[in-house]
């Protein structure tokens, strides 16, 4: 700082380091940093593994940072076609999200505006979501065997759609109920049909909720392990299942696990980054009306 700015300088009392407020701040920041490191370290560890040589992975004492960042593992994943499983995940999660959002929102509209089934139907629908996946997976497997749907896109997409529908319906019902009904009625009087009202009034008004719900729906399908494990073989293996295949009897391919984890995190990362604005608003929507 030059002498000229001294007059504007913040007044710092001589005994600042003795003051209680100072120590409260220091304490808070220290705690925040420790907690952040604690949570980030495992993520860092699995990610950095992707760039290590096998020797570095198993080195003892552990190597915090590889001597040379190398992308060989990624090259191997692409060469062996492991990356294709991420494509499979994108297809199943993406298509099932679109389907669940479409049908779920329509169902939600019906529940919210036409009082379809009263309060009971809505509760019944969300109760479906509370069934643990493991309870239904074996009956579903048998049914799928019968239809020849094991290891097919339509099989997995149908299951994810069915599993996410109650969640979408429940969430969207809340968001739709928050829309002032006069907005829709005004549009109806003005000459729009119900479907047009849905498109031109309900969707824009519930936009934040739509995006937030879609992101969570996508994340569920994307991260699902149990359904995919049971219902896929080789054709449409999804990426979480593929990651587990790197745990071998004799050997575990840690570098591959790390690299796949990075690739598998990217879509979610971008989805959340893209819709962050809506996510925050969508989640807090019920709280502040205005």
């Amino acid at each position: 700082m030059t002498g000229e700015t001294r007059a504007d300088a913040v007044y710092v009392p001589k005994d600042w380091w003795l003051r209680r407020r100072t120590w409260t701040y220091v304490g808070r920041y220290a705690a925040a940093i420790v907690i952040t490191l604690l949570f980030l370290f495992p993520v860092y560890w699995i990610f950095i593994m992707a760039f290590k040589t096998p020797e570095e992975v198993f080195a003892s004492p552990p190597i915090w940072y590889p001597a040379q960042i190398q992308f060989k593992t990624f090259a191997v994943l692409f060469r062996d076609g492991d990356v294709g499983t991420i494509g499979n995940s994108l297809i199943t999660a993406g298509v099932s999200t679109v389907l669940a959002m479409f049908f779920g929102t329509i169902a939600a509209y019906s529940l919210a505006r036409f009082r379809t089934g009263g309060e009971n139907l809505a509760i019944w629908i969300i109760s479906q979501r509370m069934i643990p996946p493991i309870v239904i997976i074996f009956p579903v497997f048998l049914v799928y065997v019968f239809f020849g749907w094991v290891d097919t896109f339509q099989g997995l997409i149908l299951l994810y759609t069915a599993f996410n529908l109650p969640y979408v319906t429940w969430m969207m019902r809340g968001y739709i109920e928050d829309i002032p009904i006069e907005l829709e009625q005004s549009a109806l009087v003005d000459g729009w049909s119900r479907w047009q009202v849905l498109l031109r009034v309900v969707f824009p008004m519930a936009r934040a909720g739509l995006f937030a719900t879609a992101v969570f729906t996508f994340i569920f399908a994307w991260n699902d392990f149990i359904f995919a494990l049971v219902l896929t073989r080789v054709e449409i293996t999804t990426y979480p299942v593929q990651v587990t295949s790197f745990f071998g009897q004799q050997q575990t391919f840690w570098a591959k696990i790390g690299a796949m984890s990075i690739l598998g995190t990217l879509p979610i990362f971008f989805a959340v980054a893209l819709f962050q604005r809506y996510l925050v608003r969508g989640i807090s929507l019920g709280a502040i009306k205005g």
Partner: protein
Amino acid sequence: MARLRITGLYKSYDSVQAVRGVDLDIPEGEFAVLVGPSGCGKSTMLRTIAGLEEPDAGTIEIDGEIVNDLPPRSRDVAMVFQNYALYPYMKVFDNIAFGLRARKFPAGEIKERVLAAAATLNISGLLDRLPRQLSGGERQRVAIGRAIVRDARLFLFDEPLSNLDAQLREEMRLEIKELHQRLGKTMIYVTHDQIEARTLADRVVLLNNGRIEQEGAPLDLFERPVNRFVAGFLGSPSMNFIPARLVAADESLAVTFEDGTALAVPAAAYERLAGRSGHDVIFGVRTEHISRARDGDTREGLAPLSATIDVVQPTGSRTYVTFRLSGTPVMAELRAHDVEHPGQRIELDVDMNRAILIDPETDLVL
């Protein structure tokens, strides 16, 4: 243009009976104003006419066609909602154009109409804004604009001026009246404002508890109320009601109060009231029909009354005073300097031609 006919309309929500048997016939081109206390079913009536609520019973006819089963968009009505119902994600221009787009107007005409409506409503400078960037009064005008750009055959307004300041309200009232004269469309207008009701209406419909108490030309309701509710609801300050008894003496008839005060009934009313003599009645008189007694005022039907003034409220050109008549507080509207101070004893004249008598049992005007 359309004639609206409502017969035997009932509508209830869960436990609340919002409309209970309304019959209404509004001829083509008429301006009808619905008034009534909060919660009496005014909005419900409009919403039922628009097709947003299904009536429990009764028919709604527009131009002789029963529209009960028509969806809102096929009824060809335009409506201004009580809470504006503007689309927060659309610019003002698009808000106003929304209904025209629904009816597939060509872009050029949409623009023309929106600009014209905006000019009428004095919001031409706001067309590029979003509703949240507008004041309450500006929003209300956008809401009106959205209705008037359309060529609907029936216009429904639900308290469209309630959020405007006094001056803007006067201006908009004039605009709406002019609009009605220019378009000649049937309009139904809900308001709490009695001046609005009186100045705009060809016909006032006074609702209470989901029923029509009385309908007719504004002055009709004001001067010839059929019951105590109508008499008390219209007029501000509201009418004074004082318990009394009708007493016959010799050839005359008088309204007599408990403290012995008597006001002579004008000869013209003898015949109508003679049968009631000896019965309890409620005497109703508006504040403006009590005046300071003046020498030489020999109008027929003035009844003298002395009073000790309790409260004096000067408002400029008029002065409101309160006094007690047989224990009941009574308000009178006098000229500015008629009374100097509280406690003053003055002579008043009650215009008995304008006063009414109510049967306390049925609340009907005698």
